[in-house]
């Protein structure tokens, strides 16, 4: 038997023993234990080290708000840092490690920081570490030197670098009523709503439903409350319209009653089932929400209140009643309210000796005196704890007479021997989700707590301790009413389960701090003391946000769940103002920390889908190196063994100009523009005319944005009188589609035009080169492809290898070239047929690099030049700006800034030293390698041109047109490439287009 395990009691399975390790030492516990309860049962009291002073810390709570007992859970190489031991369910093989200590938890060198004490007061780092203003350590150096050490001393756990092999999943849910919290209020609400036929989700962050019923020791309906809760949950499980989510923390309340929750599906298992996720991220859209989230007990602030062995009263009660663990053998209680007496009694019943009850209030009610009597404790009313004793574990404490009104201590201090001190400073309703939803908390003087406001809509409804109704009987009544109301029903009188509970006044005394010598902690994890709060006050950091930011109060991993109210109270006292005038902070998501894996959910390891062309598998099988272009994959080169990228693309481009080449252009955006007004619409959208385009012909078009800058370009084919096929650049396909839809829907709804994305309908292959026509002629049937049948920009329909195709003669490469479109399902079939037909001609497949090379030689623009900052004129596309009609952008395109003489204009660049040029290199008039300056512009695209036998580039250069024929330099300090160039026209190759016109 473990030293602190009780003989009987608790809801653990004593027949199942579980083995685990903590800091490498083996321990055993029982099924149903948390790591905290199991370690306590083994007599472990030291759980962790605090953030700043590295003080030894025990377990303070039994739940999600735990600030002290943080551990790292190891699964092989995969680490999960900063997990409260109170939230870890033990399983066979669990390996947990303590954190923020070196070399060991018991002996931590950084504990020396405690000696710094007052020197390390709040905000100390803003006042020092600035270093000298001259010399080698001036500027930021000295601070960065100090920072190096500070960063290593700070931080808690260590993040892992080994990839997590677990699965994370997303789940979208819709319901009528979401009930958050499954204490008596939540269970009643879920039941009432379900009985109305509503779709109900009940979420509980603990493994078991029941909340406080699991440890209160009360009776409901004549049975132990825990049994009642288990029965109620079991009944709900049988309803088709109810989904029960245990181990599920609702952490975010977002607009439109969208709530975010994390379900820890397999954290408590040794190994998950096949396909089972570790965490499931629920996004719940609820018509109405019942918030039955309970309340959190507050610590009292007094010297030494952080010593291991000091814990919240209800936590001790939970350890005894729920886990069958005694957190101490000689237990004392320090309280300002009645609720904690029940805890003392629970520990007494579980076998501990209750040695003292210290109550800050001068008078105790007769009920409390009676309860106290049952514990056989010595009673100190009107007293306070002023110090604790012991090293890394509590050995005793001191009490002194305390005057609640003045806060004064008097009389002799008396030492009392104890190994566990329970404290209770009253309760704060867990209003986080309501606050996230926009509710402004209201201070309740009697309960000394911020309560949620009465809801004004059915968005959410509160019940139980969340609303400040701390008794189980109230929770049951409110829960039922809330469930009915959330389901849209009106509450009817009904017999409610009877509760057998200890008496008690819910109102605590307004006592938050005992001022005595020594460090009194407000924020346990961050080591913020009461003196730190007063220092913040002295320095003017009095607004609650300044207090938080200056002292880091409430910024720890528990997000101030236990420290906020005591911190506010101490500031309020310093200011001489009531607490609500100091303010409360608005709570923001998440309620408690959530794994980043769960938030990425199904996208963990799969950030973006892959978009594949119909011929993708052929490319891969035929040696293409694939290039990810946005979501698409496109062949970059089809390299031969031993070839460099440059050798491969030069070979491909050269072969295309010498004979023929073929490239997959399926990724081009394709939009069907159909309807009686389609031509009129295109006239408005493009800068040039489309209404004059004949059926069976295509035309190159330019679009501007409304602000007059170039937007996108492409060819549009007129397939019928009212039927156009628009092509866009690959990158802009989606944007162009939205642009068209916007104008049709919002600006010109009178136009009868439908636009439909047909990018995926068509496989496209562009075949170009001197032999391209012959290759087509060899494989196309049903149409001629000669100049008469298929003139430049003409379109014909025919068949290749039994598949209908649509062929347009247009050229990006500057060669005699054709785009062959077929149904995507036939894409590979047609592609292979073309390649087969091209074999006698030495047809090559080419990729993006050769495509780029061919277009640079021709001086065509792409996204590198249409970069959102260039105009049609900058790109020498003035000829496309129709003067006969207005078009999108026409009114704005002539503003002074867009026609200024020093604008960047498109030019060609030829390397004069026969060395390669680099994309992103700049162009200068005078070379200064040591201090580069005077940029005229930059290279947008570059290549080795097999047609010219030179390294060439396109560039955007200030006043570029006028600089043609002049010398300049590339200046590329990032890659240390400097050298002479000539600025030329962007039309390097075959400027009159004789090749493509044949």
């Amino acid at each position, binding site marked *: 038997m473990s030293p602190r395990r009780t003989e009987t009691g608790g809801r653990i399975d004593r027949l199942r023993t579980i083995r685990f390790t903590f800091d490498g030492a083996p321990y055993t516990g029982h099924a149903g234990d948390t790591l905290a309860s199991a370690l306590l049962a083994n007599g472990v009291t030291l759980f962790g080290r605090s953030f700043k002073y590295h003080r030894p810390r025990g377990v303070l709570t039994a739940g999600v708000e735990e600030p002290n007992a943080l551990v790292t859970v190891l699964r092989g190489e995969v680490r999960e840092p900063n997990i409260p031991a109170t939230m870890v369910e033990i399983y066979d093989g669990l390996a947990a490690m303590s954190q923020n200590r070196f070399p060991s938890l018991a002996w931590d060198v950084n504990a020396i920081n405690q000696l710094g004490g007052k020197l390390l007061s709040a905000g100390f780092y803003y006042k020092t570490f600035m270093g000298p203003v001259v010399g080698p350590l001036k500027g930021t150096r000295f601070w960065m030197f100090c920072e190096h050490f500070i960063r290593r001393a700070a931080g808690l756990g260590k993040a892992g670098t080994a990839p997590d092999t677990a699965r994370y999943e997303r789940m979208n849910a819709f319901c009528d009523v979401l009930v958050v919290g499954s204490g008596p209020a939540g269970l009643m609400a879920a039941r009432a709503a379900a009985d109305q036929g509503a779709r109900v989700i009940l979420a509980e962050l603990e493994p078991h439903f029941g909340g406080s019923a699991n440890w209160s020791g009360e009776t409901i309906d004549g049975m132990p409350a825990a049994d009642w809760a288990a029965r109620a949950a079991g009944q709900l499980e049988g309803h088709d319209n109810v989904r029960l989510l245990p181990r599920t923390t609702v952490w975010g309340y977002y607009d439109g009653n969208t709530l975010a929750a994390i379900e820890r599906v397999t954290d408590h298992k040794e190994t998950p089932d096949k396909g089972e996720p570790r965490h499931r991220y629920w996004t719940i859209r609820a018509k109405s929400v019942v918030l039955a989230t309970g309340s959190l007990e507050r610590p009292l602030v007094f010297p030494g209140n952080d010593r291991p062995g000091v814990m919240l009263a209800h936590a001790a009660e939970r350890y005894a009643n729920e886990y069958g663990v005694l957190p101490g053998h000689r237990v004392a209680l320090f309280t300002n309210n009645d609720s904690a007496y029940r805890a003392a009694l629970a520990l007494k019943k579980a076998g501990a000796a209750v040695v003292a009850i210290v109550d800050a209030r001068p008078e105790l009610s007769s009920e409390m005196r009676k309860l106290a009597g049952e514990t056989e404790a010595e009673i100190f009313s009107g007293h306070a704890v002023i110090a604790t004793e012991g090293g890394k574990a509590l050995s005793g404490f001191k009490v002194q007479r305390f005057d609640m009104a003045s806060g004064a201590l008097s009389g002799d201090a008396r030492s009392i021997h104890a190994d566990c001190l329970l404290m209770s400073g009253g309760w704060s309703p867990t209003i986080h989700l309501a606050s996230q939803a926009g509710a402004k908390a209201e201070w309740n003087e009697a309960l000394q707590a911020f309560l949620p406001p009465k809801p004004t809509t059915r968005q959410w409804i509160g019940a139980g301790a969340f609303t400040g109704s701390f008794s189980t009987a109230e929770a049951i009544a409110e829960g039922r009413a809330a469930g009915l109301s959330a389901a849209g029903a009106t509450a009817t009188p009904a017999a409610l389960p009877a509760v057998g509970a200890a008496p008690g006044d819910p109102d605590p005394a307004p006592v938050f701090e005992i001022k005595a010598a020594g460090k009194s902690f407000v924020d346990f994890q961050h080591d913020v003391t009461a003196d730190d709060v007063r220092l913040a006050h002295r320095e003017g950091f009095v607004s609650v946000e300044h207090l938080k930011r200056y002292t880091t109060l409430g910024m720890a991993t528990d997000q101030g769940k236990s420290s906020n109210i005591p911190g506010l109270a101490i500031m309020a006292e310093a200011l001489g103002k009531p607490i609500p005038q100091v303010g409360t902070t608005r709570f923001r998501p998440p309620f408690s920390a959530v794994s980043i894996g769960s938030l990425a959910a*199904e996208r963990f390891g799969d950030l973006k889908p892959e978009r594949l062309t119909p011929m993708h598998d052929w490319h891969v099988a035929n040696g293409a190196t694939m290039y990810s272009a946005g979501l698409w994959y496109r062949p970059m080169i089809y390299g031969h063994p031993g070839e460099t990228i440059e050798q491969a693309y030069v070979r491909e481009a050269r072969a295309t100009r010498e004979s023929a080449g073929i490239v997959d252009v399926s990724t081009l955006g394709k939009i069907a523009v159909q309807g009686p007004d389609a031509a009129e619409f295109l006239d408005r959208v493009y800068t040039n005319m489309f209404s004059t385009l004949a059926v069976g012909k295509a035309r190159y078009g330019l679009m501007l944005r409304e602000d007059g800058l170039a937007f996108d370009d492409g060819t549009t084919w007129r397939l019928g009188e009212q039927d156009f096929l628009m092509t866009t650049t690959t990158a802009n396909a989606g944007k162009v589609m939205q642009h068209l839809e916007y104008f049709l829907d919002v600006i010109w709804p009178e136009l009868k035009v439908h636009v*439909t994305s047909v990018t995926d309908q068509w496989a496209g292959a562009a075949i170009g080169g001197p032999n391209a026509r012959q290759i087509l002629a060899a494989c196309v049937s049903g149409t001629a492809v000669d100049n008469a049948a298929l003139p430049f920009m003409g379109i014909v329909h025919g068949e290749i290898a039994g598949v209908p195709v649509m062929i347009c003669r247009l050229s990006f490469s500057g060669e005699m070239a054709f785009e062959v479109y077929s149904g995507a399902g036939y894409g590979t079939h047609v592609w292979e047929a073309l390649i087969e037909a091209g074999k006698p001609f030495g047809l090559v497949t080419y990729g993006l690099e050769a495509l780029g090379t061919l277009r640079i030689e021709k001086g065509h623009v792409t996204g590198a030049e249409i970069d959102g900052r260039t105009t049609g004129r900058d790109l020498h596309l003035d000829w496309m700006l129709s003067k006969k009609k207005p078009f999108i952008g026409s009114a704005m395109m002539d503003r002074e800034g867009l026609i200024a003489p020093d604008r960047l204009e498109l030019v060609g660049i030829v390397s004069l030293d026969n060395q390669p040029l680099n994309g992103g290199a700049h162009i200068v008039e005078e070379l200064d390698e040591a201090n580069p300056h005077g940029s005229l512009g930059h290279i947008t695209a570059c290549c080795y041109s097999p047609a010219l036998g030179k390294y060439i580039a396109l560039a955007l250069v200030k006043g570029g047109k006028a600089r043609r024929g002049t010398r300049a330099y590339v200046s590329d300090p990032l890659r240390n490439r400097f050298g002479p160039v000539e600025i030329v026209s962007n039309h390097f190759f075959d400027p009159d287009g004789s090749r493509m016109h044949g």
Partner: protein
Amino acid sequence: MVERQSPLEPVLHPGSHGNFEHGVEIILSETRPGSILQLAAWPGQEKALMAGIRTVTGLALPDGAGGGVTDGVRSVFGFAPGKFTMVDEAEGLASAFADVVTPSIGTVTDLSHGRTAIRIAGPKAEWVLAKFFAIDFALPAFPIGAGRSTMHHDVFAQIQRTGADQFDIYVFRSFARSFWKALCHASEEVGYEVQ
């Protein structure tokens, strides 16, 4: 006739997968219809278009947004104001509509190659789909025959419920392989069979 190539071919592995020891709760298949059309009416011509659909296919579309109907061979559903997706096992449906949907009624756009049709069936179909799409799959909210347009991140999808436990999903062909893989991955938890 040349057979159309499916983008799913290399990743479609018939058989049982995932955690199927306790039974298969999902059946995945590619339905490979011959025709997928978009039929779109000009404002005010919706009824005429619906009548045209009835003339050509015999399918009587119910009124209302997202309404649809299926006879097991042909299916049709509304996915946007005045717009319908029409699916037929056979090829060549576009030409059948060419004379019926006249320019005064609306437009016909052939998407037979552009969309891939994936069927998910089984008792956990709603559960698995809910992992992807933020729409309510419960039967009262999404009745049999009805259609929905929605998306999973970058993947746009039209979904028709073709049975109590059966949905047909139409995704862009270029995304189909990625989506299929994701669908299989998400189905592992409940055990799935590919047909």
